[in-house]
C-alpha cells in the first residue's frame, strides 16, 4: 500500500475578532495509505473537522505541509471529494441532476452517454433508482446522505472525506448506511477519512482510529489500529476479541479528555492545616477487594484522624487511569500495583523515567490465576497439562488477561507460565484488560484465562465460567499486592503530609486485619462507590465452604493480608525482585545503578516514622529472601546473575537510569 496523504507538522491558528488567536491544532503528523479507512475521533471543538477540511483543501494550514501523492495541497479538488454532514445537496436539482452536476464538471470531456451511465450506475449503487427524479426536500435524511455519497463516489476521488456523515441520522438508518458504506469501500478499494464522534462507528468502519486531544492546541493523542479482518459484519465485529478493548480504549481516552478539561478549569491549590503542607488530597484507587485500606481510611475516618480532612477518592476502572493521574499530576497519591513505582521510575511510562516512591505496602496476596471452565472439562488441571495443551495446539492463538504490565498479576502469571516451560509471549498472547472486564471477556471466550485480584477469580468460579488453577499463595506466598505510590517531587514538596497519609493508611490496614471488622468491611466494599458488587463475591480472609467445594483444581482460596509482622514495611528485596521481572519481560531496562534507585524509591524512612508515631514497633527489619513455588530463592545479592540464569526471558537491556533526563540506553 502506497502513501496517499501525508500531514507533516501541521498547525492551525485562527485569529479571533478581539485580535487574539486560537490555536486549534498543534503539530499534527499523520500518514494515510492507499485503501485505508481512517477515522478522526474526539470531543466537539477538538479540531477534527478542521483537520479534514485542511486535507480537503477547504482551509489551509497556518504552518506545516499537507500532501496528496507527494503534491502539496493548496486548494480543494474533485480528487478529494467531501461528504458533508448536512448533505449539501443543491435543493433546486433533482437527485439525478445533483449527481450529474458533479459528473459533468469532472468528466466534461467524456461523451454524454458515458456520463449518463456513470450517474445511473451510482444511483443504483446506493439503491435510489426509485427516487432518482425526486427533489432533495422530498427525501429523508438517510436518502439524502446516500445521494451525497453517490455524488462523491461517482467522480472516483482518490480520497473520500466524510465529515460526520451519519451524525444527524437515527440509529437504524445510521446502521444501514454504515453497512452500505463499508461494502462500497471494500468493493471499490476506497481510501477514506471520516470524522465521527461515534465510538462504535469508528471501530466498525476504520482500519485506524486517530484520537485527538481537546483544544486549544489539540494534538493526536493516540492512534489505534483496528485488527478486525475485513469484510466485516456488524454482528461478528462485536464478537471479535479486540472489539471491546478497542472500544474501551477510545471511551477511556474520551473520558480522560473530558476530565482533563474539568481539571484545567478547577486548578486546586494546596490547603495547609495542622502542620501538614496539604490536607486536600485526591487519591486514586481501582475497585478491587484489595482497595479495602483506602476505602476504610475514608469511611472510618482514618484520614481525618491524622489531619487529612479533605481527602477525595477517585475511582478508576483501570490502572491506566492511575498511571495517567499520577503522570498528569492530578492525583496526589494512589493505590498501585506493587511494581508500578519502579515501572514509572525506570521509564515504563512513555519511555520517560518519572520517579515514584513507595512508603507502604498495603496488601499482600489476594490474587489467583483463572482458566476458562472448558479447559477444566478437557482435563487441564495443572500447569503441566496446560503447557501440553498449548504445545498441542500451536495453531490456536490463546489469550490471557492481566491488568497492567507492572502489576503483580502480570509478573506472577508470567513467572508461573515460564516456570512451567510456557513462553508467555510466544505460546500465548497476554492482553491488558481492566479488572472488571475480565469475567465478561472470559464468558465471551475473548480470553482463555486471566490473573487478577479478587473478587474476580471468585466471581468467575461462582458464575461457573472459570476455575482457579493456581493461587498466589502457591506461587509466591506473601507477595506484595498493592502499595501506596506518590511522585517523588510530591513527597519532597509535602513531606509531613506523606507521613500522615502513610499513618492513616497503616492505621486502616490494622483495622482491616481484625476479623471482627470483616463483615463491615465487606459491606462497605460492596457499595457502589467502591466495588459495586454483591457482598457474596467479596472475601477478605478464608473462604467459606461454598467456594472450596470446586474440588481438586480449586486449591485454597487466596486471602488478603493487610497487616502483620513486617507486612507493611516497603521491602527493597521485593522491589528488586520486581525490577528483575520487569527487566526480564522487556518492559524497562535493568538499571546499572539499581542500588541507588532502590534507596530512592523505597521510602523505609517515611514508613518507620509513621509506624513509630502510631506506636507500632518494628519487629523485623527484613523479610528475608523470597521463596517461589519452583524452588528458587531470590535474594538481593546478584540480580544480574539471576537474570542471566533464567531460561525464558526477553532481550534484557542494562542501562544507567538517570532521573533528571531520559534513559541512557546501553545494550548489555
Amino acid at each position, binding site marked *: 500500500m502506497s502513501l496517499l496523504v501525508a500531514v507533516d507538522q501541521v498547525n492551525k491558528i485562527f485569529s479571533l475578532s478581539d485580535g487574539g488567536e486560537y490555536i486549534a491544532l498543534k503539530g499534527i503528523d499523520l500518514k494515510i495509505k492507499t485503501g485505508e479507512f481512517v477515522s478522526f475521533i474526539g470531543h466537539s471543538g477538538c479540531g477534527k473537522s478542521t483537520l479534514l477540511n485542511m486535507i*480537503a483543501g477547504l482551509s489551509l494550514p497556518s504552518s506545516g505541509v499537507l500532501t496528496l501523492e507527494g503534491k502539496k495541497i493548496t*486548494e480543494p479538488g474533485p480528487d478529494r471529494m467531501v461528504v458533508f454532514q448536512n448533505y*449539501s445537496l*443543491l435543493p433546486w*436539482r433533482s437527485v439525478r441532476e445533483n449527481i450529474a*452536476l*458533479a459528473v459533468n*464538471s469532472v468528466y466534461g470531456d467524456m461523451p454524454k452517454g458515458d456520463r449518463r451511465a456513470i450517474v445511473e450506475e451510482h444511483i443504483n449503487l446506493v439503491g435510489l433508482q426509485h427516487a432518482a427524479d425526486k427533489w432533495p*426536500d422530498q427525501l429523508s435524511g438517510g436518502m439524502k446522505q446516500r445521494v451525497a455519497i453517490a455524488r462523491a463516489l461517482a467522480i472516483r476521488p482518490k480520497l473520500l472525506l466524510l465529515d460526520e456523515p451519519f451524525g444527524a441520522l437515527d440509529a437504524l438508518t445510521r446502521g444501514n448506511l454504515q453497512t452500505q458504506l463499508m461494502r462500497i469501500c471494500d468493493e471499490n478499494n476506497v481510501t477514506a477519512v471520516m470524522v465521527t464522534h461515534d465510538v462504535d462507528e469508528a471501530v466498525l468502519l476504520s482500519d485506524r482510529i486517530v484520537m485527538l486531544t481537546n483544544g486549544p492546541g489539540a494534538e493526536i493523542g493516540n492512534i489505534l489500529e483496528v485488527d478486525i479482518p475485513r469484510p466485516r459484519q456488524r454482528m461478528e465485529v462485536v464478537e471479535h476479541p479486540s472489539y471491546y478493548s478497542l472500544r474501551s480504549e477510545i471511551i477511556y481516552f474520551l473520558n480522560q479528555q473530558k476530565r482533563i478539561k474539568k481539571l484545567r478549569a478547577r486548578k486546586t491549590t494546596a490547603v495547609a492545616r495542622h502542620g501538614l503542607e496539604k490536607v486536600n488530597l485526591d487519591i486514586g484507587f481501582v475497585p478491587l477487594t484489595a482497595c479495602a485500606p483506602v476505602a476504610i481510611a475514608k469511611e472510618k475516618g482514618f484520614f481525618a484522624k491524622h489531619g487529612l480532612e479533605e481527602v477525595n477518592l477517585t475511582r478508576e476502572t483501570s490502572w491506566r487511569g492511575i498511571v495517567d493521574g499520577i503522570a498528569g499530576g492530578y492525583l496526589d497519591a494512589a493505590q498501585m500495583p506493587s511494581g508500578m513505582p519502579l515501572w514509572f521510575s525506570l521509564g515504563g511510562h512513555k519511555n520517560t523515567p518519572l520517579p515514584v516512591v513507595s512508603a507502604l505496602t498495603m496488601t499482600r496476596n489476594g490474587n489467583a490465576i483463572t482458566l476458562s471452565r472448558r479447559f477444566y472439562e478437557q482435563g487441564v488441571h495443572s500447569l503441566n497439562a496446560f503447557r501440553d495443551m498449548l504445545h498441542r495446539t500451536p495453531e490456536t492463538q490463546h489469550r490471557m488477561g492481566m491488568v497492567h504490565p507492572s502489576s503483580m498479576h502480570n509478573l506472577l502469571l508470567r513467572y508461573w507460565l515460564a516456570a512451567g516451560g510456557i513462553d508467555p509471549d510466544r505460546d500465548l498472547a497476554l492482553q491488558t484488560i481492566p479488572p472488571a472486564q475480565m469475567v465478561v471477556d472470559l464468558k465471551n471466550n475473548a480470553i482463555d484465562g486471566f490473573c487478577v485480584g479478587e473478587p474476580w477469580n471468585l466471581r468467575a468460579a461462582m458464575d461457573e465460567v472459570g476455575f482457579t488453577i493456581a493461587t498466589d499463595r502457591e506461587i509466591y506466598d506473601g507477595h506484595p499486592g498493592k502499595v501506596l505510590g506518590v511522585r517523588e517531587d510530591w513527597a519532597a514538596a509535602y513531606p509531613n503530609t506523606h507521613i500522615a497519609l502513610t499513618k492513616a493508611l497503616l492505621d486502616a490496614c490494622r483495622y482491616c486485619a481484625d476479623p471482627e471488622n470483616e463483615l463491615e468491611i465487606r459491606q462497605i466494599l460492596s457499595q457502589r462507590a467502591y466495588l459495586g458488587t454483591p457482598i457474596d463475591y467479596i472475601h477478605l480472609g478464608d473462604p467459606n465452604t461454598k467456594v472450596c467445594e470446586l474440588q481438586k483444581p480449586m486449591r485454597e482460596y487466596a486471602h488478603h493480608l493487610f497487616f502483620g509482622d513486617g507486612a507493611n514495611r516497603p521491602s527493597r528485596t521485593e522491589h528488586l525482585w520486581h525490577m528483575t521481572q520487569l527487566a526480564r519481560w522487556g518492559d524497562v531496562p535493568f538499571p546499572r545503578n539499581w542500588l541507588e534507585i532502590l534507596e530512592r524509591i523505597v521510602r523505609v524512612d517515611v514508613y518507620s516514622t509513621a509506624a513509630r508515631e502510631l506506636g507500632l514497633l518494628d519487629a523485623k527489619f527484613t523479610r528475608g529472601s523470597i521463596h517461589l513455588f519452583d524452588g528458587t530463592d531470590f535474594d538481593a545479592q546478584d540480580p544480574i546473575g539471576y537474570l542471566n540464569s533464567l531460561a525464558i526471558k526477553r532481550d534484557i537491556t542494562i542501562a544507567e537510569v538517570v532521573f533528571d533526563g531520559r534513559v541512557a540506553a546501553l545494550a548489555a
Partner: protein
Amino acid sequence: MVTHSQVRKQARPNPVLASVQQFWQKRGPDLVPPIIGIAVFLTIWQLVSSSGLTRLPGPLSLWTDTRTRELLLYPFYDLGGLNKGLFWQTWASLGRVAQGYTAAAVVGISVGVLVGTSPWLNKATYPIFQFLRMVAPLAWVPIALVALQQNQPAAIFVIFITAVWPILINTIEGVRQIPEDYDNVAKVLQLSRKDYYLNILFPSALPYIFTGLRIAIGLAWLAIIAAEIVMSGIVGIGFFIWDAYQQNYISEIILAVFYIGFVGLLLDRAIAFLQMKIAPARK
C-alpha cells in the same frame, strides 16, 4: 336542513350548479370573510359621506355621478389627446412602469451579483446605496426633469431609480447569503465560473432576488402615479387624477384609485406567479 337537502336534490342533475356548489363548499370559508369585510367597509364609507361630515363622495357616487358612470362603463374610448378611457390611461402608465422596471431589474440584478460576490465592492458601495435608497421618488422628479428635459424619459427614470434599490440590495444579500456548503461543493468540484453562476449562485440567490422584485414592483407602481401627477400634460392614470382634482371631479378620482389599487394587486400576483414558476420554494 330540509331546504338544504332540497337544494341538493335539485342540484344533482345540473353539473354546472354542482361544480359551483362544490367550489363554494371548498373555498367558501376563505371567501366569505373578505367579502363581508369589503361590504362593511363600503357601507361605513357611504354612511360617513352621506352624513355630510365630509365632502368626500361615497362609493355609490361612482354610479350616481354621470361623468364617472360613463368612465366606468366605457374604459376603452379614445377621443385623442388626453381624452382617453381609463384603460388607456392605465395602459400608458403600465407601459412606463414596464420600461423603468425592466431596466431596474436588469441593472439591479447584475450590479447586485457583482457587488455581492466582491466583499471589497460591497464595502465600497454600501454607504452610497443606503444613501440613495432613502431619497423619496418625488424628490427624483425635478432632478430627472432637469437632467432629461422631457417628461417621458424622466418618468421612466423615476420608476427605475425607485425600483432598483430593493432589487439591488436583495440581490447583494442573496449572493452573500449563499450557504457555505454550496460554495464548498462548488470549490471541491472545481466548477467553472459559468457553471458556478448558473448552478449555484443564481438558484441560491433567486428567492432573495424575487423578494426584491416583488417589493420593487409595488414601489414602481407607487412612483409612477406620483411622477405623473407632477409631470403635467401626459397620458397616464396619475395625471388623470391630478386633472380630475383640478376640475373638482372627486368621484372620478375615487374610480381612478380603484383602478390603481386593482392593478397594483395584479402586478404583485403576477410576480408571485412568476416566482412560483421559476423558483419554487425548496429547502
